[in-house]
C-alpha cells in the first residue's frame, strides 16, 4: 500500500487528520431538493472540462478564413475564422461535435439547475439569516451564468447568434446617456466590430469562469462553515443537523449524481442535435433567419421584447427607445428583486432570528404566492418568445396571439399567485398532508382572513426541558466517547456524527444539539436500528415480485419447450410467441 506512507507524510507536515476527521463527519440532510445545487456544480465542472477541449480548436477571430473540410456545402467558402473553426470543430475534428454539443447542453442544464436550486432556496426560506450572503453569491452566479451563456452562444459568429448579439447590442444602446458608450466600450466600435469575438472569447473562457470558480468556492466554503439547514422533523432542532455523514454515504451518493449528470449530458450531446451553426450559415449584416429563438434562459428577455408595445418617448428631445423597458428595466428589476428579497422579507416580517430549520412552502402563503406569480410571469415570457412558431403550429394569426400573450403575461401571474396563496393557506389551516387531502370547505375557509400567524414562530420548539420520551445516551468506546439521541415515541435513533475524546466533550456536544434533554450513560453501543416500515415493505414486495417473475419465466420456458417439440406453424398465437418470449425473458432473470 503506497497510500498509507503518503498519508502519514502529509499528516506529519500539515496536521491533517483532525480536520479530515471532522470534514468526513459533516452531516448532509437526506432530501432530494438538496441535490439541485450539486447538479449545477457538476454541470459547471462538465462545462469547464468540455470547454477547455473546445478552446484547443476554436479560433476566436473575425479575420477571413477559407473553410476546407468535409462539410461540402461550405467547402471553399470564405467566412470568419471563428465560424470556419466552429464548423471544422464540428465536422472534421473527431469527437469535436460530441464535446461541443455536450458543452451546449451542459450550459442549458447549468442554468436550469441554478434556477431550480434558487426556487428551492426561495420557497423554503433558506435565504434567511444567517444565509443571506450565500443567497447574494448565488444570485450573482446566476447573472454570470446567463452572461457567459450568451457570450458562448454568440462566439461561433453564425447567423442566428449574430442576430442575438445585434439585439442585445440594441438593448444596451437603448440605455439613456451611456448606452452607446457602453456598446462602443464593449465592442471596440460599432456592431459588428472586429474586436468583438476576441473580447467575448476572453470573457467567456477566462474572466467570467474565474469569477465563477471563486464564487463557487466561496459558496461552498460558507455552506460548510454555516452547516446545512434542514426541514423540520422529529429529532431536528434549530441546534443540530440530521442526515448522512459525508463519508462514506454522502460521498458515494454525490459521486453517483456526478456520474448521472455526465451520463445524461453526454447522451444529449451525442444524440440530440443542438445549435447546428452550419445550417444557419455565417453571420452577414443583411441576412436573418426565421424562426429565431435564443437559448431558453435568455428567452424571457426575448419574449418581453416581443410583447412590450411600441412605446417610445423623448426626454428633452433625446430618444428613449422601446427596448429600454423590456430589456434593461425588466432585467434590472428582476435581479434587483432577487438581490433584495431576503432584506425585503425581513423588513416586512420583522424576523431577525437566525433559522436553521426550513419552512415548508405552505407556511408562508405570501412568499409562495409571490414566488409562484414571478415564475409564472417568466415562464409566460419564455413561451411568448416562441410566438411565431406557436402561431404557425396553431394556425392562428400571429398578431392575435401577440395580443393574447400581452394579456396573459400580466393576468396569469396574478391568478397563479393568488391560487398558490389560497392553497398554501388552506393547507396550513387544515393541516392536510398534501393537495389531495384538501376539502372544499378548507378552500372556502382559506379565502377568509383568519388569525394572524406570527411569521417565524410557525412551529415553536417544544419547551426543551420537558420533552417526554426523549433522551441522550452516552457510552464509552475504548478511549473515545459517543452519544446518541433516542425518541421512544417515534422509534427514532440518531447517532452523533463523530466520536469525541472525553465524556465532557460528549456531554457538551449533546447539550448543544439537544439542549435540556436528559442524558444518561449506558454501558455499550446500541443494537442497529430496525429497518423502517417503508423499506421493509419494499424489500418484501421486491422479493415477492422477483419470485413471481421467476415463476412466470419458468412457466413460459416450459411452454416454449413444449412448443418446440410439437411445432404448430399454422397457429398464429404460437408463431407470435418467440417475440413475446424475447420480451419476457430479461425480466424473468432472478
Amino acid at each position, binding site marked *: 500500500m503506497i497510500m498509507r506512507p503518503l498519508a502519514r507524510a502529509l499528516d506529519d507536515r500539515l496536521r491533517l487528520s483532525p480536520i479530515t476527521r471532522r470534514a468526513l463527519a459533516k452531516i448532509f440532510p437526506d432530501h432530494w431538493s438538496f441535490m439541485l445545487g450539486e447538479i449545477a456544480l457538476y454541470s459547471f465542472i462538465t462545462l469547464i472540462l468540455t470547454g477547455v477541449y473546445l478552446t484547443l480548436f476554436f479560433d476566436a477571430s473575425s479575420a477571413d478564413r477559407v473553410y476546407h473540410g468535409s462539410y461540402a456545402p461550405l467547402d471553399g467558402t470564405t467566412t470568419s475564422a471563428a465560424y470556419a473553426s466552429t464548423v471544422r470543430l464540428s465536422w472534421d475534428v473527431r469527437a469535436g461535435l460530441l464535446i461541443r454539443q455536450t458543452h451546449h447542453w451542459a450550459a442549458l442544464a447549468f442554468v436550469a439547475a441554478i434556477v431550480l436550486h434558487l426556487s428551492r432556496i426561495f420557497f423554503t426560506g433558506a435565504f434567511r439569516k444567517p444565509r443571506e450572503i450565500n443567497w447574494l453569491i448565488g444570485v450573482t452566479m446566476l447573472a454570470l451564468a446567463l452572461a457567459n451563456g450568451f457570450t458562448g452562444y454568440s462566439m461561433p459568429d453564425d447567423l442566428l447568434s449574430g442576430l442575438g448579439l445585434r439585439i442585445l447590442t440594441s438593448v444596451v444602446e437603448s440605455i439613456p446617456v451611456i448606452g452607446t458608450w457602453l456598446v462602443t466600450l464593449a465592442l471596440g466600435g460599432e456592431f459588428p466590430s472586429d474586436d468583438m469575438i476576441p473580447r467575448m472569447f476572453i470573457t467567456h473562457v477566462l474572466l467570467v469562469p474565474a469569477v465563477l470558480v471563486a464564487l463557487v468556492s466561496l459558496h461552498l466554503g460558507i455552506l460548510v462553515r454555516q452547516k446545512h439547514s434542514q426541514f423540520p422533523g422529529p429529532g431536528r432542532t434549530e441546534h443540530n443537523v440530521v442526515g448522512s455523514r459525508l463519508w462514506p454515504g454522502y460521498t458515494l451518493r454525490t459521486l453517483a449524481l456526478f*456520474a448521472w449528470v455526465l451520463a445524461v449530458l453526454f447522451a444529449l450531446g451525442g444524440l440530440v442535435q443542438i445549435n447546428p451553426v452550419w445550417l444557419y450559415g455565417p453571420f452577414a449584416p443583411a441576412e436573418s433567419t426565421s424562426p429565431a429563438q435564443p437559448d431558453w434562459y435568455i428567452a424571457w428577455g426575448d419574449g418581453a421584447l416581443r410583447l412590450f408595445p411600441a412605446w417610445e418617448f423623448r426626454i428633452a428631445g433625446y430618444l428613449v427607445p422601446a427596448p429600454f423597458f423590456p430589456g434593461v428595466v425588466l432585467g434590472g428589476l428582476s435581479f434587483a428583486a432577487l438581490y433584495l428579497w431576503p432584506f425585503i422579507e425581513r423588513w416586512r416580517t420583522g424576523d431577525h432570528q437566525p433559522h436553521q430549520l426550513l419552512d415548508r412552502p405552505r407556511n408562508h402563503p405570501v412568499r409562495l404566492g409571490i414566488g409562484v406569480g414571478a415564475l409564472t410571469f417568466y415562464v409566460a415570457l419564455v413561451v411568448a418568445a416562441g410566438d411565431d412558431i406557436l402561431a404557425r403550429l396553431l394556425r392562428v394569426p*400571429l398578431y392575435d396571439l401577440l395580443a393574447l400573450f400581452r394579456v396573459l403575461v400580466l393576468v396569469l401571474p396574478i391568478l397563479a399567485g393568488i391560487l398558490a396563496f389560497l392553497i398554501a393557506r388552506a393547507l396550513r389551516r387544515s393541516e392536510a398532508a398534501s393537495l389531495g387531502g384538501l376539502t372544499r370547505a378548507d378552500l372556502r375557509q382559506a379565502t377568509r382572513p383568519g388569525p394572524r400567524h406570527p411569521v417565524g414562530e410557525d412551529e415553536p420548539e417544544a419547551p426543551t426541558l420537558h420533552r417526554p420520551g426523549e433522551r441522550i445516551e452516552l457510552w464509552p468506546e475504548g478511549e473515545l466517547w459517543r452519544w446518541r439521541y433516542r425518541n421512544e415515541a417515534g422509534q427514532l435513533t440518531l447517532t452523533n456524527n463523530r466520536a469525541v475524546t472525553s465524556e465532557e466533550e460528549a456531554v457538551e456536544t449533546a447539550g448543544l444539539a439537544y439542549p435540556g434533554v436528559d442524558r444518561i450513560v449506558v454501558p455499550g453501543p446500541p443494537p442497529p436500528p430496525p429497518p423502517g416500515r417503508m423499506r421493509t415493505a419494499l424489500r418484501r414486495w421486491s422479493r415477492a415480485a422477483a419470485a413471481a417473475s421467476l415463476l412466470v419465466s419458468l412457466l413460459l420456458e416450459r411452454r416454449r419447450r413444449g412448443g418446440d417439440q410439437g411445432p404448430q406453424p399454422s397457429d398464429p398465437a404460437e408463431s407470435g410467441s418467440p417475440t413475446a418470449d424475447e420480451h419476457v425473458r430479461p425480466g424473468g432473470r432472478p
Partner: protein
Amino acid sequence: MSRRTPSKAERVASRRIAGAFLVSAAGAVGFAVTYGLNGGTQWEGVCLAVAFAGLAVGLAVWSRRLVPTGGYVEEHEGFTPPPAEQAMTAAVFRAPESPTRRWGLLGALGFALTALGVAALFPLRSLLPWDRQRPARSLKNTPWGPGVRLVDDQGRPLRPDGVPADTMVAVFPEGSIDVGDAPAFAVRLNPERFIRQPAGGHLGGLVVWSLLCTHAGCPVRLYLKGAARVLCPCHQSSFDLLAGARPIAGPAARPLPGLPIEVGPDGFLRATGDFTAPPGAGFWSRR
C-alpha cells in the same frame, strides 16, 4: 480487525455494483474503439453515456445498499459568538499600536488607494476606438452619401431595371458590403398605391429603405409582396411600405429610414445622401 461474513443481501448488492462498473468499463472501451474507428458522434455519445451511467448505477447501489443512509446528528452551535469572544477580538483592533486608531493616516492611505483605483480605470479607455467621433454620431453616420453607388450582395452596381417587381433586393453602398448599419433594400411599388410618400423619395416607384428594423436592428428580410409589407423575423415588427414604411404591428415604433436615390450619368443607381434617419435600433439622440 475481525471481518464479519457479508449477508446475502450484501453479496447480491456487491455483485450488482461490480456488474455496473464492468458495464462502465465496457462503455469506456467502446468510446475508445468508436473514436479510433471514427464511428460518429452518436456512438461516441452513447458509449460515454453508458460509461458514466454504469458508474452512476454502481455508486448509487453502493451508497444505498452497503452504507447506511441517515441516522446521524451533528450539533449546530449557532453563529453569534459569546460576548466575551467579541470583546476580545474588538480589543485586538483597539490596541494602542493598532493601525485602525490612526485616523489621519488611514485617511491619507484611503486617498492614495482611491487615486490608484481611479488611475487604474484610465487604461480602460483603450477599449474605445481612439480615432472615432462620439459613439452616437458614428451610429448615425453610415457609408451612404452623395454619389455612393448601390451594389448587390455580389458587389455589382445596380441599374433601375435590376429591381424587378414583387421582390426585395438587398443593396449595399459600393465598397462597404460588410458594414453593420449600411444594408438597405430596394423594392419596386406602384406609386399610385402610396398612402404616404417614402421619406427618401422614389424613382418611378423604385424605393430604397434601410434593412434594419427600428426596434432591435434585425434585418427585415420577410417581404409580404401582395400587401407590400416587410416583417422582422426577430420580434415580428411589420412595416407598411405603401405608407412610408410606417410600423403597423409589433414592437417597432419608428418607420424605416429611407435612402434618397437617383440614376447617375453612368446609368447606375446612386445615393444622393445618407439615410433620412439613423438606421437600426433607437438610441439616446436628438434624431
